[in-house]
């Protein structure tokens, strides 16, 4: 039985300090919260870097930083957002929610779980320490060779490599842990096809991490050898091949994009049904689409290299075109879930709808890049910057905030304030569109990405100024969220076990859950065990609404 009746921890007679407890914990819920807190701190840091970048670009001329610092800023912004914010945010959500949602007591390897987490702040500190040792890495998060070779870049790049080796190892360990947990620790009755969609997305994501990240860590290790021991893997001056780096990097880098979006899609697939009071529309199609994205995700990497002249274009163009289809399926499933539902707009649902309306743009403006000739025009321009931010900010970050508002009552027993949440949502949605939509237009006008300055004659000034204003709106939008968390944690913990009328097992235990999570579990006969418990298992097949109402009254 995966249900644990007694918490062994409760029998301890000695007390530990709270700090010691947090530093040494192996409880998946505490580690999850550590992940989320750490990611949020790095989110603030990366956001500050972004504000400096946007301030510098607001008008022509170098006002605040020189070009060499500018290159460090966007390199650290990108690397931090991807490896220290988005990935660990999602890993943190997975850590917190997956064992609860499958009715497990903890992750399969609790100590490895703690190790995976603690590598992250260490890696982050190492990477940022470059600023104090002659400059951080400055080659972009893609770190193309030969620019990343020792003769063109400083020791910040070595720190970047070592940090990414740590973070990569952390991800690999984490993914093995998730897979073992999901395959071995599911509660009785929780078959694969009864798992919540979020668990499915974490599972597929973990497979992607397990297959892709070792290629990346090998790549950065080879780069380290190139830089420090005269290896010749990627430097053509000594017989190496710079395209090899790009192939290795993107073989990881593209699945990474799906690693960063799939769990966010999973969150949306939890939030939209609960707040529409309907099951997810087309559960199996949704799972199939997730698997298809994961599979196809490994055959599209070279679409990042269409302009290198070293790629067989039609193949990667075809696979990239096809990967739009499963994403489309998901969109229609989400909308059909809301269709004829009874939707309430608490903050998690607002962020979910924000995700749908914003991520859509990131899907469409990326789909057009599957065409190599169009990519010849738009590659490495601000169109790409618009695309990546509509996907990762309009998509993943909105998903992360939806999850934060959704699971906060479970984590801390108190609901975040709805009024502050709505202010946060509205400002962030406006800021996102104002900042990132004009980037498409700049890309069409030919503004390359990663330039510290542009000529006043280029005609790019107005749009850049607008984007800078938008970026400050985003920054301001985070303040009500932080205030909300602060105030709520000082207030009463009165959210109750199931504040949203949820469907999945995490809402069947107390808020916050005790160590080892469950005293007993409801029977699991569908992907919505708690819904079945509250409304009756029969309700999953379109009961006439009158009888549903009776059932509900009986339950409450």
């Amino acid at each position, binding site marked *: 039985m995966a249900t644990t009746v007694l918490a062994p921890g409760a029998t301890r007679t000695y007390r530990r300090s709270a700090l010691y407890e947090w530093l040494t914990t192996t409880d998946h819920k505490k580690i999850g919260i550590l992940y989320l807190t750490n990611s949020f701190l790095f989110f603030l840091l990366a956001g500050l870097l972004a504000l400096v970048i946007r301030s510098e670009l607001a008008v022509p001329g170098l006002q605040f930083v020189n070009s060499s610092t500018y290159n460090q800023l966007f390199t650290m912004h990108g690397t931090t957002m991807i490896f220290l914010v988005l990935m660990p945010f999602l890993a943190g959500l997975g850590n917190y929610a997956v064992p609860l949602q499958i009715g497990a007591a903890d992750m399969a390897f609790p100590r490895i779980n703690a190790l995976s987490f603690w590598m992250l702040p260490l890696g982050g500190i190492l990477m940022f320490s470059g600023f104090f040792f002659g400059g951080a890495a400055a080659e972009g998060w893609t770190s193309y060779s030969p620019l990343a070779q020792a003769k063109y870049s400083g020791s910040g790049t070595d720190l970047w490599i070592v940090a990414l080796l740590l973070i990569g190892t952390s991800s690999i360990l984490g993914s093995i842990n998730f897979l073992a947990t999901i395959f071995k620790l599911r509660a009785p009755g929780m078959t694969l096809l009864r798992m919540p969609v979020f668990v499915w997305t974490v599972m597929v994501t973990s497979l992607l991490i397990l297959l892709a990240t070792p290629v990346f860590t090998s790549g950065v290790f080879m780069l380290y050898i190139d830089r420090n021991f005269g290896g010749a893997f990627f430097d053509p001056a000594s017989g190496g091949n710079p395209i090899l780096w790009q192939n290795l990097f993107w073989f990881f880098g593209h699945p990474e994009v799906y690693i960063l979006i799939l769990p966010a899609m999973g969150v949306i697939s939890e939030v939209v049904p609960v707040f529409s009071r309907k099951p997810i529309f087309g559960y199996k199609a949704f799972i199939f689409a997730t698997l298809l994205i994961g599979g196809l995700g490994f055959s599209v990497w070279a679409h990042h290299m269409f302009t290198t002249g070293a790629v067989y274009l039609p193949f990667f*163009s*075809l696979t990239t075109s096809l990967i739009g289809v499963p994403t489309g399926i998901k969109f229609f499933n989400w909308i059909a879930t809301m269709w004829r539902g009874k939707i309430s707009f608490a903050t998690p649902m607002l962020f979910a709808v924000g995700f749908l309306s914003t991520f859509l743009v990131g899907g469409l403006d990326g789909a057009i890049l599957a065409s190599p*000739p169009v990519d010849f025009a738009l590659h490495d321009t601000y169109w790409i910057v618009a695309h990546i931010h509509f996907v990762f900010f309009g998509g993943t970050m909105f998903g992360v905030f939806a999850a934060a508002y959704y699971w906060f009552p479970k984590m801390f027993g108190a609901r975040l304030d709805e009024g502050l949440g709505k202010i946060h949502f509205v400002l962030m949605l406006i800021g996102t569109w104002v900042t990132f939509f004009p980037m498409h237009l700049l890309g069409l006008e030919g503004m390359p990405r990663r330039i510290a300055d542009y000529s006043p004659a280029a005609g790019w000034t107005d749009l850049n100024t607008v984007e800078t204003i938008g970026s400050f709106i985003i920054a301001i939008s985070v303040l009500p969220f932080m205030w909300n968390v602060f105030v709520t944690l000082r207030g009463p913990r009165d959210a109750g076990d199931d504040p949203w009328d949820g469907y999945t097992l995490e809402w069947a235990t107390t808020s916050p859950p005790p160590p080892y999570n469950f005293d007993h579990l409801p029977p699991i006969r569908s992907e919505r065990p708690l819904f079945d418990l509250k409304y009756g298992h029969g309700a999953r*097949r379109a009961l006439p609404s009158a009888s549903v109402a009776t059932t509900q009254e009986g339950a409450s």
Partner: protein
Amino acid sequence: MQLSPRVRSVVTVAGLAGAVLLLGGCSALYPPNAASSQGADIRTLYSIFMVPMIAIFVLVEGLIVWSVLRYRRRKGDDELPVQTHGNNLLEITWTVLPTLLVLVLFFVSWQTLNKVDAEPANPAVTVDVTGFQWQWTFAYPQYNLSYTGIGDQGPVLVLPVDEVIHVRLHSNDVIHSFYVPDFLFKRDVIPGQVNNFDLNLKDAGVTYTGQCAQLCGMGHYQMRFTVQTMTPANFQAWVQAEQAKAKATPAPAAGGQAGPTLQLSASSTTSFDETSLSAPAGQPFTVQLTNKTAGAPHNFSIKDASGKVLFTGLPLAQPGQTVSYSVPALPAGTYTFFCSVHPTNMTGTLTVK
């Protein structure tokens, strides 16, 4: 419909605002008119893609807005909605139709790709473009002409219209990318690999700006150049005039100039090895510049405090070369010496006393 008048007016206003935005933003949603026939093909392809993209955008955003407004949970409504789990026909439809759509778009795009990447056998003009940190060299091997960029604006690439131009891309150091927004085209410039493309330009007497599109270090943002088009006849005249000018330019005078000789060297594109020099006032002197950088040329130039350039050292010192520049007499004072190829970052102080 069960919509309240308030909701209906919101829908109407949102719909109108959306339509106005789309129409108003329409020209901004398209790239500039292309200067080359290849770019025109790409622009047409982009326009084809935009039709389903805008349609899907309007459809999906419309469905989201509709669901949000229409299916709100009313206060006090505790009844469960009908628990729909799926609909096979719908799901098959929205799987098959998008698949067909992307396959069609893929084939259309493949046709354009073949046109854009076509390389006719006998180009009229071949240009060797060499990128290095952080300038370009444009060479015409058949005319024995070569231009390396100096200053902020980089070199000028003069090209004829109505003829096939063959461009070969070389890099001396890191990866760059040759990008002219008005061509709607870029191609990476990669060390150890020569990339090619062909170009047919349409309008003579036009100037286009271009710049490097692949991050290549601290000077990436100012790795600019200009393309200037001419009629074929004017282009031939320009070639002959340039060839005559090249012959008329005397070879650099041999060393042994009057005055002291200062030694200067450059091992990278970020700075000179020496950042301060001093020379006697009122007396010519010689600067011997040794270029130890693998990929890029350098030179020695002087400007005064106001930024006025007093001396530009030519020819450039190519990698591995040592070149002596005879500098005329300067009054006492403090000057800035710099490399014209890397004017922003390769600077030093010249004290004349």
